[in-house]
């Protein structure tokens, strides 16, 4: 049965989560690392059966990564961003690929570009980069400009300066 957005928000608030009402059909949910699997299982059980994407944000000044799980419900037509903050020095999260099979590729990608490890996922091999030996390239402390100048002899602004 279709639930209204306000009902979904109420259920999530009752579970002690912080909820942000973003758009007509989108809400954001902040969860703690220890509760992540619990909350995702709960969302799945109330009809959020589709995981669209997993992505990460590097908050380098706060020393944290924010991993965002996008889940969608075909019944409620609501898109939830499940956000979890983890320590940058110990970037480990439990895998969700036994909840959603497609998480396999998203986790591989997040691991490749941010170096976040997903415990329980046995195949975190790189998908896109070949022979990568530096720190993961989408971390904020990775200087792509300097990297390009050193490795590819890139000229700043095409050599115009």
């Amino acid at each position, binding site marked *: 049965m279709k639930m209204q957005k306000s009902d979904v928000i109420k259920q999530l608030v009752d579970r002690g989560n912080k909820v942000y009402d973003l758009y007509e059909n989108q809400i954001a949910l902040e969860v703690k690392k220890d509760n992540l699997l619990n909350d995702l299982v709960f969302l799945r059980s109330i009809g959020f059966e589709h995981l669209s994407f997993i992505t990460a944000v590097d908050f380098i000044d706060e020393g944290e990564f924010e991993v965002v799980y996008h889940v969608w419900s075909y019944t409620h037509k609501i898109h939830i961003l499940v956000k979890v903050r983890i320590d940058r020095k110990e*970037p480990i999260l439990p895998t969700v690929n036994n909840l959603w099979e497609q998480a396999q590729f998203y986790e591989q990608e997040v*691991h490749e570009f941010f*170096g976040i*490890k997903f415990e329980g996922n046995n195949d975190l*091999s*790189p998908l*896109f*980069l*070949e*022979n*990568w*030996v*530096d*720190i*993961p*390239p989408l971390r904020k*402390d*990775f*200087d*792509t*400009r*300097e*990297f*390009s*100048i*050193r*490795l*590819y*002899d*890139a*000229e700043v602004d*095409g*050599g115009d300066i």
Partner: protein
Amino acid sequence: MELPPAMTSRWDVERFGIGPMATPRQADVLLVTGYVSLKTLKRIIRTYEQMPEPKWVLAFGSCTVNGGIYWDSYNTITNLAEYIPVDITVSGCMPRPEAVMDALQTLMKMIQSGEAGAYKKYKENYEYYKANQDRVLKKTVPILGQTPEMDLEGKNEDAKE
């Protein structure tokens, strides 16, 4: 993107005796269109070396000349001529089909006058090209000097080949 209109009825390069080939082994000219990532570079080198002599290379668009708008990316090479010999370049982002036809006809003139023979340069200076190719494709030490904390097991398999 410019090649389909160049090949089909509106610009019709076939009237100048220019046509697409199915495999590198039947081709005379290699057109490298757009930015070149490391993965692409590997395949470009393989394709180029498969082509029978005499052979020519047309670098197509700003990206192959100096990286274009992607010059400071972690995975885009900035100067194709460092890795394979380039006979003629077409600038533009993207070039018009007229520019492609013009470049190919200029190339024909250069071939007749003996100016275009970069494939000989490849054989003579093979060490230079090979060293550049290996530097980016088989790197073993981090370019920025930062070592990744995460384990990189299995990430360097390609380098050992």
